[in-house]
């Protein structure tokens, strides 16, 4: 008898067995894993969402007037997002090339610098640009004759968007470019193509997937931008987000707000689907070795020097103008003491601790910091309690998890302002209670927390546990010595994420927070909108504090995250 080796069957059997072991996990424990996170989402997201939908799809809402204004808002939202994306590409592409191909001193520092804005709260960025280019900013103080307007213009919005999102282009396109095998270019050159034709016919087509994907992502962020537009442009620039905010708080028309937020949600969903498709297609040939070179020749040296200088000043200027402006009086500031002062001062900080009559708040401004810290702490605890079971279930997915995963991530696709709107429509009568704010923050933070924990949990291979038990560790000791220490770092990273998100959250908080419980971003917004040098200075001081807190958090997250855990 001729024997046939049947690798396939038995191999499949072994794989099947592994899957089998997972799916045998009783349904009951699966349900226990999901009961908390799901009920949270149902009560605070899906139920409010259904209220918004109900408000949208009725005849009183779908009037010609409402639809017309919605269309105009949508058009402008598109317009500014497209413009912003194009400008971001203009700065991002040369920068991606710079980082992917050249080795120069201070490179990693510059790269880190370009990534900082992405994590910063919008109020900090807005305050930074205000400190640099605003009517009371550094440039105005240095060149008093210049009469240009920055705050309140489309330019301000566009520049802030470029400031935020250039890092996406640098990362995505830069990674693709640096993993592109330079042999393709050499081959094209040896076939007679000049350097322009090499780029046009070889490099760009190969980069296309990553170009499209990164542009889509930038567009998505610009499309849903809120804080930057409201604080730098003003409410006259009515994008979907700003208009929703206006229709809730300033010129109440809740049904128009609902209509706008449904349009917004649909748009982001469509864009996200596009983006996911683009990402799944973006694969490029890996370079076998490093393609980095030191700049050679005048042309390259000039390119590297000029671009590095441009980038570092563009990213450093607003970030350093902010703390500077919080410590220096630049204008004839007739403060409460009635005397005119210039120069170094710590007044803006000490003033934060004083509850002045007639000031913006009913409480000393530093109370906003305490509120923020309290909310952030609550958000951390809540999002970990909800995130852990969900992440555990998602780490070993069954059919159930494949369905639930996108549902869990859905709040990420809806805007913060929309979350706020949902809260107001559904739980309006409880808005006086301060604990609604951390609930909203948890909704925003939960997807990030889950996405940080899940790969860490999944990355503990069964083999590690088996190795530990073959070395004599009891199940309890395995959990104590293997699972727990590996998870500790991810937990810290997730907690810091939630903390940072809560500290900087602006959109939802603006809609639902009570005047007597302001958070840092709300306080900054109110200080900025008030006249008087002291208010302005306090905005700067608070924004500086927030920036410092956020920077510390970024450093902590980088420290805790496992080197090869997933990105977003």
């Amino acid at each position: 008898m001729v024997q046939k080796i049947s690798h396939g069957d038995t191999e499949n059997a072994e794989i099947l067995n592994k899957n089998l072991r997972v799916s045998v996990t009783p349904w009951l424990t699966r349900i226990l894993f999901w009961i908390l996170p799901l009920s949270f989402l149902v009560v605070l997201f899906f139920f409010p969402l259904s209220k918004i939908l109900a408000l949208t799809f009725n005849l009183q809402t779908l009037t010609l007037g409402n639809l017309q204004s919605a269309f105009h808002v949508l058009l402008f939202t598109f317009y500014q997002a497209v413009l912003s994306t194009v400008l971001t590409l203009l700065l991002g592409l040369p920068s991606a090339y710079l980082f992917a191909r050249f080795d120069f001193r201070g490179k990693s520092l510059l790269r880190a610098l370009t990534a900082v804005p992405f994590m910063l709260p919008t109020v900090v960025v807005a305050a930074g640009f205000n400190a640099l280019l605003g009517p009371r900013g550094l440039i105005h103080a240095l060149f008093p004759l210049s009469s240009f307007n920055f705050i309140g213009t489309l330019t301000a919005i566009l520049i802030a968007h470029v400031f935020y999102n250039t890092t996406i282009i640098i990362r995505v396109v830069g990674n693709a470019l640096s993993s592109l095998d330079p042999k393709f270019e050499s081959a094209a050159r040896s076939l007679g193509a000049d350097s322009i034709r090499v780029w046009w016919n070889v490099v760009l087509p190969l980069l296309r997937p990553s170009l499209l994907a990164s542009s889509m992502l930038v567009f998505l962020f610009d499309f849903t931008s809120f804080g930057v537009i409201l604080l730098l442009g003003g409410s006259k620039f009515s994008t979907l987000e700003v208009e929703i905010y206006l229709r809730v708080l300033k010129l109440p028309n809740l049904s128009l707000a609902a209509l706008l937020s449904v349009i917004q949600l649909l748009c982001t969903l469509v864009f996200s689907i596009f983006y996911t498709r683009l990402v799944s297609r973006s694969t490029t040939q890996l370079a076998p070795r490093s393609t980095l070179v030191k700049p050679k020749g005048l042309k390259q040296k000039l390119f590297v020097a000029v671009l590095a200088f441009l980038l570092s000043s563009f990213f450093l200027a607003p970030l350093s103008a902010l703390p500077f402006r919080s410590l220096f009086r630049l204008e004839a500031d007739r403060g409460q003491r009635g005397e005119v002062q210039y120069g170094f001062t710590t007044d803006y900080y000490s003033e934060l601790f004083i509850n002045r009559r007639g000031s913006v708040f009913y409480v000393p401004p530093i109370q906003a910091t305490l509120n923020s810290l309290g909310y952030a702490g609550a958000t951390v605890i809540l999002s970990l309690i909800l995130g852990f079971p969900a992440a555990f279930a998602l780490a070993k997915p069954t059919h159930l998890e494949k369905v639930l995963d996108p549902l869990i991530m859905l709040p990420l696709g809806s805007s913060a302002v929309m979350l706020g709107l949902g809260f107001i429509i559904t739980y309006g009568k409880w808005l006086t209670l301060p604990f609604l704010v951390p609930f909203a923050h948890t909704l925003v933070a939960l997807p990030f927390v889950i996405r940080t924990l899940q790969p860490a949990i999944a990355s503990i291979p069964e083999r590690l546990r088996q190795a530990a038990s073959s070395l004599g560790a009891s199940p309890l000791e395995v959990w104590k010595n293997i699972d727990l220490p590996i998870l500790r770092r991810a937990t810290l990273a997730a907690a810091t994420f939630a903390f940072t998100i809560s500290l900087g959250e602006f959109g939802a908080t603006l809609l639902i927070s009570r005047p007597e419980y302001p958070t840092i971003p709300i306080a900054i917004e109110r200080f900025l909108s008030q006249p008087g040098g002291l208010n302005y200075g306090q905005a700067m001081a608070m924004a500086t504090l927030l920036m410092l807190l956020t920077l510390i958090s970024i450093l902590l997250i980088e420290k805790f995250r496992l080197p090869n855990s997933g990105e977003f």
Partner: protein
Amino acid sequence: MLEVHHIFKTYEGKPLLNDISFQVNTGETICLLGASGSGKSTLLRIIAGLEDSDAGFISFNNIDLTSTPPHLRDFGLVFQDYALFPHLNVNDNVAFGLKMRRMEQDKILQRVASSLEMVNLQGFEKRKVTDLSGGEQQRVALARALATRPRLLMFDEPLGALDRALREDLLNELRGILHRTEIPAIYVTHDQEEAFTLADRVLILHDSVILRDGTPADVCANPESAFVAKFLGLGNVIDGEVVSGKWKVETEHSVFTVNCSHKHSKGEKVHLLARPLPAEKEANVIQGIVADIIFQQDRFKVIFDNGLYVTLEEAPKLGQKISVKVKVECLA
């Protein structure tokens, strides 16, 4: 002494392990050799207690281990992907099993040092395991398994992820360590060279049964089945039919005369093994037109147009018709 008694295991109704029994004696190294997916890793996990069998049991020194959880079996296990704990440094990885056994701190330090010395990694204690090369990681994994001085060591394709040169070095070191420590060992691999280098005894697992159990020399001399001969690459396996007594076998190539201790009857289908080395005293001849020649260090593998091959000391010309006297034996 480890004894494996009548182990059965099925997946989705298909047998993966069908009545597997064998034993590992004190100081003995056995190699479980089989194609990937033949169930050899599963067998290892069953012995380690990480997986349950459908029937049968494992015993050590005549004590049934069925109700003994894996962490109390005192069997060391080395994985192909090393399974080093990423959050612990080299020292803490190697010390892990000792800590689980509540050993005193200074004794642990000594034992870690001597284990690292055994695998030639002196002074690596403070290194991060994630910074080590593949070979170094596997040495740490080996040191970690050795440190507890387990009563049995098991290896699941431990060198599979390493490149060839490194594999040979580690294999020779492992051979030395197993001899010196006299810990009985089960080594699972699909690589016959590894198996023959290490094993006192080779067990070939195929179609859910142990097809052959013997010393490497014995198995090579008497493969006893077409699969074993093919799997070990011992020569040309030819299908034939017995045409007359004592024993003429007709094949598509020619009629061979074989000495055979089996009892065959006329018309019976048999498998023959034609060894590739020329043997002047033999009566059987294989022949053909040279279709390809492959250089092999000290010889040439000469492949005929009919698919048969021989290994010769001097290369013939392509297209030349040659015939070579070889040993042909019956595989039953």
